[in-house]
Structure formats: structure tokens, C-alpha cells
């Protein structure tokens, strides 16, 4: 094992980063790095990234991803760093459909259905709707969870009510199809909205 010394940049570097970000509310990281390096010659890219991430964790900076030019929406969806939530939503919906229609309704496999079904009803419809309609809101995880829960519980009865007046009625198949369709459509809409916002360079 080799000895190594981790040199922590002093507070001045961190202050510089924050001050610059404050004076230029939307600045590219690469531009910021160039300015900081002019002021602190010893600053490496790795140290800069580490400091920026640390400041973001302390909530002193807000980081915003962007989409490189030339990336299509389809490719954007496959970038798990920015659309991990989309993959999880689709995964949970798929799991729910599998547990309802393919897995036997016996213990212990039925536990998977309990969990997947509960998540789909209590969280997914609200989550994707909030994601679509409030793309720019700075909601932390708890706020998003609470809002998703509240909106899901509002949406599910409304979907059921609409189904009541359709020829299909309120049955397992009709609810599964309508909620799955709704969630996927909203998720795609939310992903598209995020894609367009990031491409246009707005903060979201």
C-alpha cells in the first residue's frame, strides 16, 4: 500500500466556487472550472469536481444536468443517469403486470404482488404526474414522496369513476390497462419535457 496525502483545498477555493456561482446564477461547470483554475493554479479537474459535488451535497450549490447536442430523445431515455426513474417506473409496472397475470397467487410469490401492486397504486400515478407537471420544482425526496402519495390517491378514484361510465366498467383488466397506460404516457411525457428543458439549457 502506498502512502498518499490527500490535499484538501482550503476554504478559499470553496468560497470562490460559491461566489462565482452566485454572481453567475447559471454557469457551465467547464466555464466555472476555467475561472477557478485561473485563481487557484493548483486546482485539478478531479478536485474541482469533488468540491462541486461536496458543495451540492451540502445544498450550497444546485447541480443541473444537461443533454449533449446530438442526443435523440430515444437515446436520452436509455441514459440511466438522467432517466433512471423512468426505467424504475416501467420496471415496477411490468412487475405488477407479471405478478397479476403470470405468477401464481400463492405464498410466498404473492408477496411480490402485494408490494408491486401497492407501489403502483400509492406512488406511481402521482409520481409520474408530478414529474410531468412540476418539472422545475425543487422538491426534495420527502416532498416528492408525500406529493406523489397524495396525488396518486386522488387519481386512482377518478380513473375508477371514468371507467364506471365506459363499456368496460371497473374490473381488474380495465384498471390495470388504464393505470398502466396512464403511467407510461405520463412518464414518457415527463421524460420528453425534461429532455426539452435540458436541451434548451433552462434549469429544471
Amino acid at each position, binding site marked *: 500500500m502506498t502512502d498518499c496525502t490527500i490535499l484538501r483545498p482550503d476554504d478559499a477555493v470553496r468560497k470562490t466556487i*460559491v461566489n462565482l*456561482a*452566485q454572481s453567475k446564477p*447559471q*454557469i*457551465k*461547470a467547464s466555464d466555472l472550472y476555467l475561472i477557478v483554475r485561473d485563481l487557484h493554479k493548483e486546482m485539478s479537474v478531479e478536485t474541482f*469536481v469533488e468540491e462541486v459535488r461536496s458543495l451540492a451535497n451540502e*445544498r*450550497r*450549490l*444546485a*447541480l*443541473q*444536468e*444537461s443533454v449533449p447536442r446530438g442526443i435523440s430523445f430515444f437515446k436520452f431515455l436509455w*441514459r440511466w*443517469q438522467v432517466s433512471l426513474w423512468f426505467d424504475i417506473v416501467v420496471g415496477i409496472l411490468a412487475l*405488477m403486470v407479471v405478478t*397479476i397475470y403470470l405468477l401464481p397467487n400463492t405464498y410466498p410469490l404473492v408477496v411480490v*404482488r*402485494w408490494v408491486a*401492486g*401497492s407501489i*403502483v*397504486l400509492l406512488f406511481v400515478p402521482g409520481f409520474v*404526474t*408530478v414529474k*410531468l*407537471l*412540476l418539472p*422545475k*420544482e425543487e422538491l426534495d*425526496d*420527502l*416532498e416528492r*414522496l*408525500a*406529493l406523489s*402519495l*397524495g*396525488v396518486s*390517491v*386522488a*387519481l*386512482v*378514484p*377518478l380513473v*375508477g*369513476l371514468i371507467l*364506471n361510465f365506459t363499456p*368496460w*366498467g*371497473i374490473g*381488474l383488466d*380495465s*384498471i*390495470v390497462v388504464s*393505470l398502466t397506460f396512464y403511467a407510461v404516457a405520463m412518464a414518457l411525457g415527463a421524460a420528453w419535457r425534461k429532455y426539452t428543458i435540458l436541451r434548451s439549457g433552462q*434549469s429544471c
Partner: protein
Amino acid sequence: MPSRFRVGYLQAAEDRDVPMKISLHIHDAWRKRLSSLPWLWIISISAATAIMLTPIQVSLDLFFSHPVQSMYVMRDPVAFGLEFYLFLVPTVFLITSVKHSHAMKAVVLLVLFGVIFAGLWTISSRGYIGEPFVFASDVEYITDHSRLPIDSQYRGYPGLSLFLSSFSLFTGLRLFDTIAVVSLIQIVAFVLISYVFFSKALGINSKLAGFCVLLAIQGNWSVGKSLGYIHAGSFAPWILFATLLLLLTRFESSAGSRSLILVVVLAIAISHFGTWTYTFLFLIILSFMGLFGKARKFTIGLLGISAAFQVVWQALSPTLGFSVVNTLVVTSGVTSSVTPSVSATTPSPSTAPTVLEMLSLYGRQALDRLSLVSETTNLAPNRNPVWVTLSIVFWLIVTAYGCYLGVVSLRRRLRSPLVQRIETAGIVSATVLAASLLFTLRFGDALFRPLTYVALFTSPVILRRLFSTKVSSRRYLSGALAIAFVFLSLPTFLAYNKDISLMPYSSQEQSLGNFVASSYPSGRDILRVFGITGTWPYLRYYVLTSSRNLPNDFLAIEGMRTANETNLWLQENYLVDRFENSSGILVFSALWRVPFELYLGISPECRPEWELLKTRLMSHTVIFSDGFQNILWQS
């Protein structure tokens, strides 16, 4: 760069609007030292598990006559008390010590507290508490017919039935397991949403927000008692509280937020009339307080759409059609089980009660609702011990003080921050609703219905007031509140549930239901069931289960809103008249005594009319009797 994506934009977060920070005054060094110890967590979780596994002997007897039943359903009350405090003390300490960055830990502890304080009886009764049969029969109907039932108690408000149906279908859980799970999820949702709201209301201060949630559950009679029960009045506020979070987003400029608010308000409109009325009032008062600012057109539109939706939806309700009065009455719970035919023909009071009599009646009803005298169906001969009354009254005074502060702050409505304006509007709306219910429905019970809605508003108002005092008095006041909270926790828990043997549906009631279901096979003609108000919700479930395709005719005595004994005898005899003049069954039980005990404070058994009534009833064929309940049959 470690990430494949370049970090594009940096935005300073320093200029964020950081609301006032306040904190509980417990020595920080001690707090840090103790909260870092894992053993506190172990004690808290172990004690919670022990409480949930403690055998509870809920006798489920229909008339378990003891004034504080919650004390006697524990096998060993002293051991339970020790377990309770073993859980409570470290939990409260940890909740008030968790940093904002670990807010999820606080939420987990709060959920534990909520499940024990408000959900223990839901667990022990496996969901047979609240209004499970009302929704169970609706869900059964929806599952069988794929349509909404046309004769449901909540025919115009099927929100909870639709949610339960979807949940049952998706998860594959059995009906009453679904009801129990959703009841517990209600508690989780309340804790989560209120915690987020309080964090905003009190600044990003998880310690105080956590204490505020504790106060909202324990300090609010309505929430502490029935948060874990399944009924529309618990479900719809859950949606309403989500509206509060939306109001805290930038809804004025965000079309997304406005759309979400509209969705949420429409969901409330189909879930519970009382909550919808409250929401309507709340939005009007928010508008008056200048909250909507530039979004005034949106507000007017929202109110208009919501009202129009309510009218159109009610008009679509197949059996009743739209009737504001009927809906108001049904929603208030006054005559929840009255069919229109009965209410239209019930004999009117022979003599109109005087104002003094009515006021006395309201007072009795209000006191009864608070369990300060014997609960509705608790016919215990003894009155409450002093500690029960004190515990309930203490928290009522705290809530009333919060309401007072909220109403007073109307004066500076335009100068207050956003969150405080929302709180004020919430409190004022509840006050207006309570007053209007009291005067329009003339029912003391109605006064306490809006209590649930103020749960999210009074706690932060009180704590903010507490922490705006001088530093020296603040220290004493916050300490006193914390000590009062912990000290009164167990008595309050027991006092709120003093009639707990009667709240879950009893084994006797279920036996009676099974008997009716088995002796009424499908394919027969209409079965008319006569009984007093509390009888039909569960019986309807069993009868409909046995003959799903047949209409059933339930007739019950109207809500007994009278201070007049003669009128009560008239109503009970009127029901027997109806039974004798048609075919069907009549359920005669000790519940028939309740209106006399409850509203007039007299025991009907010492009246000659009672013997006459019993003699008259016993001349019919008795097809079921368990000592408490009798089923009479008329061919």
C-alpha cells in the same frame, strides 16, 4: 469526469428563502451524545414491536359496560403502561433530535408512533373498525358488477370504495385485509404529508416538525381517535392535505401545479361531502387572504368547476338525484342510514322543543362526542374517572387555543408569509364550517367534525407562538409542553379509546350477519330489514353478499335528533308499525335503549313504554337470539 454527463449548470443555492429557524431547548451536547447511541433505536423499535404483539383482549361484546374499556382490554395494564413509556420516551427524544438531512429516520419513528397511538386497534381488530362493512359491501358490488353500487351509503361519494376496489384487485389481498392495510397506510400518509408541511411551516427544522406531528396526532381528539379507522371522513382529508403541499409550490405561475390542484379538488368532490365543503370554504378564504394573487381567475374557475362537478355528479347519482339538504344530512352522519321513504314519513314531533331544550341537547351531544360522558353505545353505569376528562379537556384547550391564534391572525393576513396564511385560512374555514353545521343541522355532534381539518394547522401555530416568547419563558414553556406531552400520552391514548370494546364490529354482530346471510339465499324476493341506525351497515353487507342481484330494503329509525321523550317513543313504535305492516325482519337489540340514554339521560327500562314495546315485539316469531340481539320475522 466521473459522470458520463457533463455537469452543465451550477446554480447558487445560498439565496434560498430560509424561513425562521426555531428549535427545542434540550441541551445540544446531551442530545448529540444520546441520539448517536444505537441502543435508543433498539429500545424504541423493540418496545414498539412488543406493544404491537401484546395480546389485546378486545372482548367485542356489544355492551361491555365499563367506562374506560381501553384499560381492561390489556391482559396486564401495568405492563402495557411500562411498554408504552419504554417506547414513547426514546422515540420522542429521537424524533426531536434527528437532523434534517436524516429526515427519513424521523418519519420512520413518527410512523411507529402513529401506528401505535392511532392504529393499534386497527391491527388488533384486523380492520373491523370504523365503517368497514359499508365499504366492504360496495367493494363486493364493484367486484361483481364492475359498476358502482346504486344504493350505497356513500352513493354520491364513491372515492374510498373505488380506491379500496382498485387496491384489492391490484394486490390480491382479501377484502378485510385490504381495509386493514389501507387504514394503516392512511396513518403513514398523514405522518408523511404533515411532516413535510410542518417542515415548511416551521423552517427546515426536522426536530420541531417531528414534534409538531406528534402534537397533531395526540393533541387532536379527532385524529388521535379515528385516524386509523376506515371511513370517508379519514380518507378525503388525506387528499386534502396533499393540496396544502401543492399550494406551497409556485402554483401562481405554474400551470402544472394548478392542474394538480384541480385534480385533487375533483377527487375530494367524489370522496366526501364534508371535506369538499371544507375545501371549498378553504379556497375562498385563501383567496380572501390574497394567496392566489395573480391567479384569481384560476381560483374562480377552480371553485366554479368544483361546484359544477359536484352538482353534475350528484345529479348522475342514480337513486337520490341531487339534493343538497339530503347530502348535507347524510354526510353529517346525522341520519346516515335513513332511507328517503322513512325520512319522508317519520312522525313529526308532537311538541316542538324549546330553545333551552335544544341547547341542552346540543351540549349533551357535544359532551358525548368527546367521550366526556358515556360514549354513544357504551352503556356503562359509571361516569368517567377524572383523569380521562382532564386528558381530553387539556388537548381540547390546546386545540382551541391554536384556533384562537389562527382566527386572531386574520388581522395581519396580507402581511403574513405564505405558510402562515394557509394555516390561518385552514383554521378559519374549520371554524366557519363548525359554526354553520351547528346552526344548520342543529346537532352538537357536528361541531366536532371539522376538528380533523385543523390538525395540520393548530400545531405549528401554537409552536410558533411558543417560540416567539422571551428566551427565558420559552425554555420553561417548551419544557412544560414536552413534559405534558409525554406525561399525558398514555392517559390520552386510553381516554380517546375508552369505548374500544364497542368500536370494532363484535363477534355477535358478525354472527347475526352470518345467520341472516345463510337464511336468506339468493333468488328470494326483496328482504326488508328494520332496525335502529347502527344495525344496517354491517347487515347490509351480509344480505347483499348472500343475494347480490336483489335489491334490499333497509328501514331504520331516523337520527333521533330530539330532546323529546314522547317523540322518541313515537319513532320506535313507528318502526314497529312499519315492520308489522309489511314482510321482513326486524333486529331488536339493546341499541334501542341508546337514544334515551344518550339524548335524554334516562334509562328507558324504567318506563312503562319500554315494557309495552318489548311485549309488542315478542308477540312475533323470534328466529334468532343471542341475549343481546333478536331477529323477529314477519311473513
